[in-house]
Structure formats: structure tokens, C-alpha cells
């Protein structure tokens, strides 16, 4: 029984190391692998929107830093292309 447990633990350790290695390769470095797991994964989500869904309205601040507007004010007459992103 102990021998079986040792084998299971060994296999799990190897799988864990292999997974970490793959993650490091995908991310570019161990530091990036950590950054991905620590900071990126918690913010990545699929959401529930699909083609045909009602577009959610949200309140946004203008680049002037003063005036707010609602997203729904920007659609209606023509299609609206939305580009989400950040500087970094």
C-alpha cells in the first residue's frame, strides 16, 4: 500500500512539474508564469454575452474626466464598434 502511495505521489509530482514547465514555456519565463496565474487568470472570464444578446448598458466617463455618458447613447443610428483595451 505504501509503495502504491509513493508511486501516486511520484506521478503527481512529475505531472505538477511538467505542468509548471509547460506554463513557463507558454508564458515565456517562470516570472511570467507567476504573473499569469497571480494576476491574469483571476480577471479572465468568458462572460455570458453571445451574438444576438442584448448589449448591456454601462456608464462611462469621457476622456475629459468630467462628463459621464451611457453606452446606450452611442448605438441606434449605426452599428457601434466597441474596442476594449488599456495602455499597458
Amino acid at each position: 500500500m505504501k509503495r502504491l502511495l509513493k508511486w501516486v505521489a511520484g506521478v503527481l509530482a512529475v505531472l505538477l512539474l511538467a505542468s509548471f514547465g509547460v506554463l513557463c514555456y507558454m508564458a515565456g519565463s517562470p516570472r511570467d508564469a507567476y504573473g499569469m496565474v497571480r494576476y491574469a487568470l483571476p480577471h479572465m472570464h468568458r462572460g455570458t454575452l453571445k451574438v444576438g444578446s442584448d448589449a448591456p448598458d454601462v456608464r462611462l466617463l469621457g476622456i475629459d474626466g468630467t462628463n459621464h455618458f451611457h453606452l446606450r447613447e452611442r448605438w441606434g443610428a449605426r452599428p457601434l464598434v466597441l474596442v476594449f483595451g488599456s495602455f499597458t
Partner: protein
Amino acid sequence: MGDIVQIYNDYKDHADFLTVYVREAHPTDEWQMKSNVKDDVCYAQPKTLEQRVAIAKDFTARYKFPLPFGVDDMSNAADSAYAAWPERLYIIDETGHIAYRGGMGPFNYKPAEVRDWLAAKYGALKHEEPATSATPMAAASPTTGSATAPSTMNSPSTARSPK
């Protein structure tokens, strides 16, 4: 983001565009990329809306970014509603429905799909002279051949043929 600017220049007479600035993808106090250091795009994750607006202004000023702009609030409401982080593209049709939903960036961020959608509706348009010197928004390329989102986290791109 350069592709988006070109699409904007080509189709701004037919469609509206809006950039929604969301939380930083690679701030200095989180997962900073070497490319950000190289490009001198080094900002901590904003703690206030004023700080977020200030970074957005730096971005628009540096690249003379021509698209209309809106900034997500500090509760990240737009990000949450549209699963937007780190970057994503949508098209909302005239009736307020999602007509196109792009995949999660950077690897499934595909401006060409937006262009295809617009081209199917308005015809293929291509202006020769770009009206701006805008270059890619850093979030659109947070890698220098490195970071990869796990494939299980990538959303599939879906497109509906425009009416």
C-alpha cells in the same frame, strides 16, 4: 490597435466607434511585461478613476488616437458586463444587440473580423493614407513572443452576418 485605427478611418462614415478603456493589463505592480519597459509604458494599476483617466490621456496623446473614448469606472462595470479584459472587440447593431463578439485578447483579438463584418455590410473600403500615426495599444500586444493565455480561457470568436 493600428489595425483598428485603419478600420476606423475606412468605415467611420458608416459605423460608430468607441474605445472603452478598462483596467490595465500589465501594470508595474502586477504582471509587467518587458515590452512595456522597452516601450516606456510603465504605470501602476490605477487606484482612482482620475489615475485611470490620466493614463488613458497619455495613451491618446502619445498615439494621437482618433477613436472616441470612454473610461470604465473603478468597479470595472464595463469590463464585467462585456468580459472585456484584457482586450476584446464587439459590434453592437442598430437595435442594441450584439452583432459580433470577438475573442479574448491578445491571441483572439482579431480586428480583421471586424473589418470583414463591416465589409459585408458596407463593402470593402480601404483608404490609402492613414489619418493618424497611432500604433498598437500595448494591451493589444502584451507579449514579445511570450505570454500566452491558456487555451481553455480563450473565448471563441463568433460573428453573425450583418444585415
